Protein backbone atom coordinates (compact mmCIF):
# COMPACT_ATOMS: atom_id res chain seq x y z
CA UNK A 1 0.00 0.00 0.00
CA UNK A 2 1.25 3.50 -0.75
CA UNK A 3 3.03 4.60 2.39
CA UNK A 4 2.96 8.37 1.86
CA UNK A 5 -0.17 10.27 0.92
CA UNK A 6 -0.15 13.93 0.02
CA UNK A 7 -3.20 15.28 1.82
CA UNK A 8 -4.45 18.44 0.05
CA UNK A 9 -4.81 20.13 3.47
CA UNK A 10 -1.90 18.76 5.52
CA UNK A 11 0.83 17.87 3.01
CA UNK A 12 2.75 14.58 2.91
CA UNK A 13 1.66 12.21 5.66
CA UNK A 14 2.20 8.52 6.50
CA UNK A 15 -0.61 6.12 5.71
CA UNK A 16 -1.00 5.24 9.40
CA UNK A 17 -2.84 8.54 9.79
CA UNK A 18 -5.53 7.45 7.33
CA UNK A 19 -8.35 4.95 7.33
CA UNK A 20 -9.53 3.47 4.05
CA UNK A 21 -13.21 3.12 3.30
CA UNK A 22 -12.99 1.61 -0.18
CA UNK A 23 -14.07 2.16 -3.76
CA UNK A 24 -14.89 5.81 -4.55
CA UNK A 25 -16.41 5.11 -7.94
CA UNK A 26 -19.71 3.60 -6.77
CA UNK A 27 -22.68 5.95 -7.05
CA UNK A 28 -25.57 5.72 -4.64
CA UNK A 29 -28.74 4.75 -6.54
CA UNK A 30 -32.03 6.59 -6.14
CA UNK A 31 -34.27 5.42 -3.29
CA UNK A 32 -36.72 4.03 -5.83
CA UNK A 33 -34.07 1.96 -7.62
CA UNK A 34 -34.57 -1.77 -7.96
CA UNK A 35 -33.41 -4.29 -5.37
CA UNK A 36 -30.76 -5.53 -7.82
CA UNK A 37 -29.29 -2.05 -8.14
CA UNK A 38 -29.23 -1.59 -4.37
CA UNK A 39 -27.71 -5.02 -3.89
CA UNK A 40 -24.98 -4.12 -6.39
CA UNK A 41 -24.35 -0.77 -4.63
CA UNK A 42 -24.19 -2.21 -1.10
CA UNK A 43 -22.48 -5.55 -1.60
CA UNK A 44 -20.73 -5.90 -4.95
CA UNK A 45 -17.29 -4.40 -5.43
CA UNK A 46 -14.74 -4.67 -8.19
CA UNK A 47 -11.25 -5.70 -7.15
CA UNK A 48 -9.20 -4.05 -9.87
CA UNK A 49 -5.49 -4.49 -10.40
CA UNK A 50 -3.78 -1.20 -11.20
CA UNK A 51 -5.25 2.31 -10.97
CA UNK A 52 -7.93 2.63 -8.30
CA UNK A 53 -9.92 5.47 -6.76
CA UNK A 54 -10.66 5.03 -3.07
CA UNK A 55 -12.19 7.04 -0.25
CA UNK A 56 -9.62 7.63 2.48
CA UNK A 57 -10.22 9.57 5.66
CA UNK A 58 -7.37 11.53 7.19
CA UNK A 59 -8.46 10.30 10.60
CA UNK A 60 -5.46 11.51 12.62
CA UNK A 61 -5.05 14.76 10.70
CA UNK A 62 -7.63 17.12 9.26
CA UNK A 63 -10.34 14.40 9.48
CA UNK A 64 -11.46 15.19 5.92
CA UNK A 65 -12.59 12.52 3.49
CA UNK A 66 -10.31 12.31 0.48
CA UNK A 67 -10.41 10.58 -2.88
CA UNK A 68 -7.05 8.90 -3.42
CA UNK A 69 -6.24 7.88 -6.98
CA UNK A 70 -3.45 5.33 -6.76
CA UNK A 71 -2.05 2.26 -8.36
CA UNK A 72 -2.32 -0.81 -6.17
CA UNK A 73 0.39 -2.63 -8.13
CA UNK A 74 3.13 0.00 -8.32
CA UNK A 75 1.92 1.89 -5.17
CA UNK A 76 2.20 5.12 -7.11
CA UNK A 77 -0.20 7.84 -5.94
CA UNK A 78 -1.45 9.90 -8.88
CA UNK A 79 -3.72 12.37 -7.23
CA UNK A 80 -5.41 13.15 -3.89
CA UNK A 81 -8.44 15.42 -3.66
CA UNK A 82 -10.88 16.42 -0.98
CA UNK A 83 -14.01 14.32 -1.43
CA UNK A 84 -16.18 17.46 -1.15
CA UNK A 85 -14.34 18.99 -4.12
CA UNK A 86 -14.82 15.81 -6.12
CA UNK A 87 -18.53 15.72 -5.23
CA UNK A 88 -18.93 19.34 -6.38
CA UNK A 89 -17.19 18.59 -9.67
CA UNK A 90 -19.42 15.57 -10.24
CA UNK A 91 -22.55 17.59 -9.47
CA UNK A 92 -21.66 20.23 -12.06
Amino acid at each position, binding site marked *: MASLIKCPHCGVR*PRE*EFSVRGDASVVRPSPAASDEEWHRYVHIRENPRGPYREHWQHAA*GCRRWLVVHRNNVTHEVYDVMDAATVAKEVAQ
Partner: protein
Amino acid sequence: MSLSLQNRHALEGHISGFSSFSNANHLSIVRGVAVISILVQPQRAEDARRALATIAESSARSCGPFEWLIVSETRSADSLLQEAISLDAASVDQSDGRVVMRIAGPDVRRILGKCVAVDLHPDSFAEGYSANLLIARIGANLARLAGDCFEIVVDRSNAVWLFEELVARGREFDLSAGFVG
Protein backbone atom coordinates in the same frame (compact mmCIF):
# COMPACT_ATOMS: atom_id res chain seq x y z
CA MET B 1 -26.43 13.59 46.96
CA SER B 2 -23.81 16.25 46.58
CA LEU B 3 -20.67 15.62 44.62
CA SER B 4 -17.40 17.11 45.57
CA LEU B 5 -15.32 17.48 42.42
CA GLN B 6 -11.69 18.31 42.40
CA ASN B 7 -9.87 19.95 39.51
CA ARG B 8 -6.89 17.69 39.05
CA HIS B 9 -4.42 17.76 36.19
CA ALA B 10 -4.24 14.52 34.19
CA LEU B 11 -0.50 14.26 34.82
CA GLU B 12 -0.65 15.01 38.53
CA GLY B 13 1.21 12.18 40.24
CA HIS B 14 3.00 11.15 37.07
CA ILE B 15 5.43 13.99 37.12
CA SER B 16 6.65 13.65 40.68
CA GLY B 17 10.01 11.98 40.96
CA PHE B 18 11.41 13.98 38.09
CA SER B 19 14.03 16.57 38.79
CA SER B 20 12.74 20.01 39.67
CA PHE B 21 15.33 21.80 37.57
CA SER B 22 15.21 21.95 33.81
CA ASN B 23 17.91 20.66 31.51
CA ALA B 24 18.69 22.05 28.05
CA ASN B 25 15.94 19.84 26.66
CA HIS B 26 12.84 20.36 28.74
CA LEU B 27 9.24 19.21 28.59
CA SER B 28 6.88 21.66 30.31
CA ILE B 29 3.35 20.69 31.18
CA VAL B 30 1.35 23.89 31.06
CA ARG B 31 -1.34 24.17 33.70
CA GLY B 32 -4.44 26.35 33.54
CA VAL B 33 -4.57 26.78 29.78
CA ALA B 34 -7.79 27.77 28.04
CA VAL B 35 -8.40 25.68 24.92
CA ILE B 36 -11.35 26.38 22.65
CA SER B 37 -12.25 24.42 19.54
CA ILE B 38 -13.64 26.40 16.62
CA LEU B 39 -15.49 25.05 13.60
CA VAL B 40 -16.79 27.31 10.81
CA GLN B 41 -18.68 26.76 7.59
CA PRO B 42 -16.40 26.29 4.55
CA GLN B 43 -17.42 29.57 2.92
CA ARG B 44 -16.48 31.49 6.09
CA ALA B 45 -13.11 29.81 6.59
CA GLU B 46 -10.96 32.62 5.16
CA ASP B 47 -12.71 35.33 7.22
CA ALA B 48 -12.41 33.19 10.33
CA ARG B 49 -8.72 32.52 9.74
CA ARG B 50 -8.02 36.26 9.61
CA ALA B 51 -10.22 37.03 12.61
CA LEU B 52 -8.68 34.28 14.75
CA ALA B 53 -5.22 35.71 14.20
CA THR B 54 -6.35 38.97 15.77
CA ILE B 55 -7.67 37.52 19.06
CA ALA B 56 -5.47 39.03 21.74
CA GLU B 57 -3.21 36.94 24.01
CA SER B 58 -4.01 33.70 22.24
CA SER B 59 -2.79 31.58 19.38
CA ALA B 60 -4.83 29.69 16.80
CA ARG B 61 -3.78 26.13 16.01
CA SER B 62 -4.91 24.66 12.73
CA CYS B 63 -6.74 21.33 12.98
CA GLY B 64 -8.06 21.16 9.44
CA PRO B 65 -9.34 23.44 6.69
CA PHE B 66 -12.27 24.78 8.76
CA GLU B 67 -11.21 23.88 12.30
CA TRP B 68 -8.92 25.46 14.85
CA LEU B 69 -7.96 25.29 18.50
CA ILE B 70 -7.56 28.61 20.29
CA VAL B 71 -4.99 28.33 23.07
CA SER B 72 -4.38 30.97 25.71
CA GLU B 73 -2.46 30.88 28.96
CA THR B 74 -3.67 34.26 30.18
CA ARG B 75 -7.29 34.55 29.11
CA SER B 76 -10.28 32.65 30.43
CA ALA B 77 -12.19 30.18 28.29
CA ASP B 78 -15.35 32.28 28.71
CA SER B 79 -13.81 35.41 27.26
CA LEU B 80 -12.49 33.43 24.27
CA LEU B 81 -15.91 31.88 23.73
CA GLN B 82 -17.43 35.37 23.65
CA GLU B 83 -15.10 36.32 20.81
CA ALA B 84 -15.89 33.09 18.99
CA ILE B 85 -19.59 33.90 19.05
CA SER B 86 -18.91 37.06 17.06
CA LEU B 87 -17.23 34.90 14.39
CA ASP B 88 -20.42 32.95 13.79
CA ALA B 89 -18.47 29.80 14.61
CA ALA B 90 -19.33 26.61 16.48
CA SER B 91 -17.14 26.80 19.54
CA VAL B 92 -16.66 24.52 22.53
CA ASP B 93 -14.57 24.90 25.65
CA GLN B 94 -12.06 22.03 25.65
CA SER B 95 -9.86 23.28 28.50
CA ASP B 96 -10.64 20.36 30.80
CA GLY B 97 -10.39 17.83 27.99
CA ARG B 98 -6.95 18.72 26.67
CA VAL B 99 -3.44 18.77 28.03
CA VAL B 100 -0.88 21.23 26.71
CA MET B 101 2.81 20.25 26.68
CA ARG B 102 5.68 22.37 25.53
CA ILE B 103 8.94 20.78 24.47
CA ALA B 104 12.00 22.87 23.83
CA GLY B 105 15.74 22.47 23.50
CA PRO B 106 18.53 21.94 21.01
CA ASP B 107 17.60 18.26 20.43
CA VAL B 108 13.86 18.78 20.21
CA ARG B 109 13.67 17.66 16.58
CA ARG B 110 15.57 14.46 17.29
CA ILE B 111 13.22 13.66 20.17
CA LEU B 112 10.06 14.52 18.23
CA GLY B 113 11.50 12.79 15.18
CA LYS B 114 11.09 9.48 17.02
CA CYS B 115 7.39 10.21 17.52
CA VAL B 116 6.11 11.86 14.36
CA ALA B 117 6.33 11.01 10.66
CA VAL B 118 6.31 14.55 9.30
CA ASP B 119 9.26 16.67 8.32
CA LEU B 120 10.19 18.96 11.24
CA HIS B 121 12.93 20.83 9.39
CA PRO B 122 12.59 24.61 9.96
CA ASP B 123 11.99 25.16 6.24
CA SER B 124 9.18 22.65 6.18
CA PHE B 125 7.60 23.11 9.63
CA ALA B 126 7.88 26.88 9.83
CA GLU B 127 7.45 29.01 12.93
CA GLY B 128 3.78 29.44 13.72
CA TYR B 129 2.82 26.35 11.72
CA SER B 130 0.51 23.86 13.41
CA ALA B 131 -1.25 20.68 12.38
CA ASN B 132 -3.01 17.60 13.65
CA LEU B 133 -0.84 14.54 13.32
CA LEU B 134 0.10 11.24 14.92
CA ILE B 135 2.55 11.62 17.80
CA ALA B 136 3.68 8.32 19.29
CA ARG B 137 0.75 6.66 17.50
CA ILE B 138 -1.93 8.93 18.95
CA GLY B 139 -3.60 11.91 17.35
CA ALA B 140 -2.60 15.32 18.71
CA ASN B 141 -1.97 18.86 17.56
CA LEU B 142 1.64 19.96 17.11
CA ALA B 143 2.60 23.62 16.76
CA ARG B 144 5.96 25.29 16.37
CA LEU B 145 6.02 28.32 18.65
CA ALA B 146 9.58 29.49 18.09
CA GLY B 147 12.96 28.24 16.86
CA ASP B 148 13.33 25.02 18.86
CA CYS B 149 10.10 25.21 20.83
CA PHE B 150 7.10 23.04 19.99
CA GLU B 151 3.75 22.76 21.73
CA ILE B 152 1.52 19.71 21.77
CA VAL B 153 -2.21 19.79 22.52
CA VAL B 154 -3.42 16.29 23.28
CA ASP B 155 -6.62 14.72 24.58
CA ARG B 156 -6.57 14.40 28.36
CA SER B 157 -7.18 10.65 28.18
CA ASN B 158 -4.05 10.16 26.03
CA ALA B 159 -1.84 12.58 27.93
CA VAL B 160 -0.22 10.07 30.27
CA TRP B 161 0.74 7.78 27.39
CA LEU B 162 2.18 10.64 25.36
CA PHE B 163 4.03 12.08 28.34
CA GLU B 164 5.64 8.74 29.15
CA GLU B 165 6.59 8.19 25.50
CA LEU B 166 8.17 11.63 25.23
CA VAL B 167 10.11 11.17 28.46
CA ALA B 168 11.37 7.74 27.34
CA ARG B 169 12.37 8.98 23.90
CA GLY B 170 14.05 12.04 25.38
CA ARG B 171 16.04 10.12 27.97
CA GLU B 172 19.17 9.91 25.82
CA PHE B 173 19.05 13.70 25.47
CA ASP B 174 18.58 14.32 29.21
CA LEU B 175 15.04 15.54 28.73
CA SER B 176 13.66 16.91 31.99
CA ALA B 177 9.97 17.43 32.72
CA GLY B 178 7.93 19.62 35.00
CA PHE B 179 4.78 21.68 35.44
CA VAL B 180 4.62 25.35 34.63
CA GLY B 181 1.82 27.78 35.43
